[in-house]
């Protein structure tokens, strides 16, 4: 029923799917597998994980201003096995755009809206990328590292 870590690694080992797959200690990091994908690989990864019975835990962004990149981090949990997978992807900072996950995990819609609020990251194909937590007319992205909103 519940997939093993090796199975999941196998899933990502195919060419072009993941940039890197790093197993991690849960005790040290809090998750078991750290997968890095290109923006195009986000949706296939999500589909693969959904097929394995994973649920979407959270989506968050990180603004790497020094590297001039925006990172989006996807967390997955599995209800039956104690497995946690992190999928991350980066895009250039001046044009941060990622595909939306809302067709695979409808729960991603809110997370993506929130990430858009905070970082201005766009999610292509998102049905309504309007501010979620910020006022409807907000034009600032408070968690970007440039400084004050």
């Amino acid at each position: 029923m519940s997939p093993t870590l090796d199975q999941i690694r196998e899933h990502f080992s195919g060419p072009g799917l993941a940039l890197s797959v790093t197993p991690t200690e849960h005790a040290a990091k809090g998750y078991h597998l750290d997968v890095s994908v290109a923006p195009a690989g986000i949706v296939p990864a999500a589909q693969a994980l959904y097929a394995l019975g994973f649920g979407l835990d959270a989506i968050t962004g990180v603004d790497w201003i020094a590297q001039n990149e925006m990172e989006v981090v996807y967390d997955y949990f599995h209800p039956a096995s104690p497995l946690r997978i992190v999928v991350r992807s980066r895009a250039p900072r001046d044009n941060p755009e990622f595909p939306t996950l809302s067709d695979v995990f409808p729960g991603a819609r809110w997370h993506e809206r929130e990430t858009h609020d905070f970082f201005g990251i766009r999610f292509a194909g998102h049905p309504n990328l309007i501010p979620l937590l910020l006022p409807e007319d907000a034009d600032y992205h408070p968690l970007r590292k440039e400084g004050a909103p």
Partner: protein
Amino acid sequence: MSAPLKIEPATGSGETFVLNLGPQHPAAHGVLRVKMTMDGEYVMRAEPVIGYIHRMHEKMGENRPLAHFLPNTGRVDYLSALHYNHAFVGAVERAAKLEVPPRAEFIRVITSELNRISSHLVWWSAFLLDLGGFTPLLYAFDDREKILDLLEGLTGSRLTYCYFRFGGVVEDLDPGFAERTRKFIAEMRPRLKMYRQLVTDNIILRKRLEHIGPISPDLCLKYGATGPVIRGSGVSYDVRRAEPYSVYSQLDFDVPTFPESDSMARYLVRMEEIVQSLRIVEQALDKLPDGPVLGKVPRVLKLPPGDYCYAVEAARGRHMVRIVSDGKEAAYRLKLRTPSFSNLSLFEEASKGMLLADALALMGSLDLVIPDIDR
């Protein structure tokens, strides 16, 4: 794989109207606004509009040194402040590889579980208030006061505790805490029986909750719903079991699940969790070791660069803190993954076509704390 939910504007068929519930509405448990497109009494589409109590916790997490952020955690979900304390100090301890003395871990478990009970009692009373029953609120608050007395004696505050510290807890148990807690447990069990007679077995309540608002396990996974919501769908997912933290692996408790997936199942899960929490507290008191309650912590705490997560089972479900550190005193990025956020996000899909009263019962059964959603 089921078809994804299509977002479409409410069609102007003429028979529907838009009901704006909130931001101030008695059933919204705070400042939640729900835009409801209604056809008479039926909810065609209920779109939660949130952010009315967004308090910039994540921004503050990046602006303040780690120790300065600690008091904030108790205010994200004020009903289970200690779990949020726990997740944050856990993440920091994990990143900084701090040792926590076993006595501190046991104290953390005891207080967390007491906090869980008090949180569930507030949920129970607020839920029944939504359903129009007022008296249970008062009974539950009376019992909750007893827990608050215990925790206030220990921590000095009643609600937004700031009791855990990196590497342990602030102070040891106050004298007599164990006896008073045991006394409380002994008093609480007959009260739970009374709750069952008064409310759980009540035909009106059962009629209002049974077969109302079914949430399938698949829906939970798609929206990331956790805690009593997913357990009410029959999935035995509990962070205390799945990723055992603290000393939960040494304690014996059940993870209650109910496969009916309706509001009643979620209700029963929480009622059963109160029983289990009482069990955990009892065991932890028995096993409580001696020793210090605060480990060795450097005066200025800097985390090694990296990405660290720590998840706990808060009263409302899986709460995870992610700290992305760049080696400075403050986190580079601090993400709070809160259970209510995910639990509410499925409301729009789950409430389609329900009666208004049932939709509100469903909303109540999700156990929302709005600042926990908005952060």
